[in-house]
């Protein structure tokens, strides 16, 4: 009987590990194919990929995704700081006053907000910003991006601030520091790596978000605009439009853009890993 149990144990181990390997393989395949297909396109076009406009459906030349790159950067530039400030303030509030009703409410709200589908955010911002403005815009896109990433930024910040050992807060108060001084000069610096991680993770989320931009940014790819009030393009948006199109050249561009997005994401990811390793408290 003992051998039977041992046999099942071994069998179980093999099955579990085998399934785990299968679980990871899609993503490995994904990374390899996206990078292969995409870098081929980028290498063929060279620097033009970053500075030219997208090709017409039947052209032979890949063109470039400059409007999307500029649009993504512009919208990130607008929404990231806003998200960080709002998220940080809320996280400071709930960390400093943990049993207060408002803190509990904010926590619950963050969870609920995170479960709203991002396309709904796009619809909402369309109704309250795009329609009154009578135009799509980078601003509307940025607002949608802020709404989508705020709950996550809040959660990352609040986890980080909560992990600062209580004794440092006691020490700060014992030398008569005011509440704001304690937060700015002690808590945030002590938590700085966690905060940097939070900012990077929020950045990654903003860069990769597609659905929130569908009805807000406007997909303007005939030129490069830097005005926040004008319609704009974004990398994920371009990929979304081009990958579904019937034109082969556009699908190729979509691969190139995907590779760019994937690489950016992986750089951010490894930066975060590197930061986290360095904690020495």
């Amino acid at each position, binding site marked *: 009987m003992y051998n039977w149990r041992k046999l099942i144990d071994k069998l179980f181990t093999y099955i579990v590990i085998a399934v785990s390997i299968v679980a990871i393989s899609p993503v490995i395949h994904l990374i390899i194919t996206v990078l292969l297909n995409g870098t081929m396109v980028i290498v063929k076009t060279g620097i033009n990929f970053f500075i030219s406009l997208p090709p017409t459906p039947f052209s032979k030349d890949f063109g470039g995704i400059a409007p999307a790159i500029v649009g993504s950067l512009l919208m990130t530039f607008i929404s990231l700081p806003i998200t960080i400030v709002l998220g940080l303030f809320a996280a400071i509030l709930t960390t400093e006053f*943990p*049993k207060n009703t408002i803190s509990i409410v904010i926590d619950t709200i963050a969870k609920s907000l995170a479960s709203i589908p991002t396309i709904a955010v796009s619809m909402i911002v369309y109704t309250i910003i795009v329609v009154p403005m009578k135009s799509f815009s980078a601003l509307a896109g940025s607002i949608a991006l802020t709404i989508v990433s705020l709950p996550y930024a809040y959660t990352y910040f609040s986890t980080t601030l909560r992990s600062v*050992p*209580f*004794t*440092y*807060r*006691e*020490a*700060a*108060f*014992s*030398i*008569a*520091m*005011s509440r704001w*001084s304690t937060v700015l*000069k*002690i808590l945030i*610096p*002590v938590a*700085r790596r966690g905060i940097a991680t939070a900012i990077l993770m929020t950045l990654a989320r903003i860069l990769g978000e597609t659905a929130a931009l569908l009805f807000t940014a406007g997909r303007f790819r005939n030129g490069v605009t830097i005005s926040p009030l004008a319609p704009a393009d974004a990398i994920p948006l371009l990929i979304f439009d081009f990958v579904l199109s019937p034109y082969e050249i556009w699908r190729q561009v979509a691969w190139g853009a995907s590779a760019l997005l994937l690489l950016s994401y992986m750089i951010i990811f490894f930066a975060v890993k590197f930061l986290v390793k360095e904690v*020495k*408290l």
Partner: protein
Amino acid sequence: MNLLAVEMKNVNVYIGDRHILKDVTLKIFNNTVFVIMGPSGSGKTTLLRVINRLIDLIEGARVEGYVKVLGFDIMKSDPYELRKNIGMVFQIPNPFPHLTIYENIAIAARINGVAKDKKELDNIVRWALEKAMLWDEVRNRLHDYPHQLSGGQRQRLCLARALAMKPKLLLLDEPTANIDPVNARKLEEAIVSLKDEVTVIMVTHSPYQAARVADYVAVFYDGKVVEQGPAQQLFLRPSTEITQKLLRGEI
């Protein structure tokens, strides 16, 4: 001039449902070393935190009774102003890890307006480190970080930080509990030498330590003051059974 640094009358402290301090009445005189002795869990740490209102940070804490610190009724005063006159050293050394040795002390001095320019700051840092008996060991490494110091040195750094505020009252919460004996002795020496400038209130669970440094002693058990008085008297002729048990090491 008020002779009393701290005066407590019928103080009760609750944390949530638990009754931590029960009807505590104490008198602590200026420029003395007052030691609070007792087994763990007797409420000594809470008592200290009432004095500088650090107990505000604890969820569900309630303080009832009369507490006068340095002439102020603490329930009617602004805790941030109150704390400018009270320094504290904690059980586990907690120097700010992101600041250098120099900055740890300087920040305390600057916040409390004790020093205004670089020169005054340098002087205060040196003075505080000398009083904490750490100056000789770190004079050439003021820009090192606390994690490069030993545990005992870190604790003396915390003492220096507390002193840089030029406080009138110094609270010490089992300061040598996590330090090796050699450093502990150094710390005790430093504490006793401070008597002229500050009033020292120290919590310990070691009667031997109390015997070494105390002018006055209060014995705590189960949140109540069991006995208090001049140290010599208490050690020679303890008047309660609990004190006797404590001195014999039975509790």
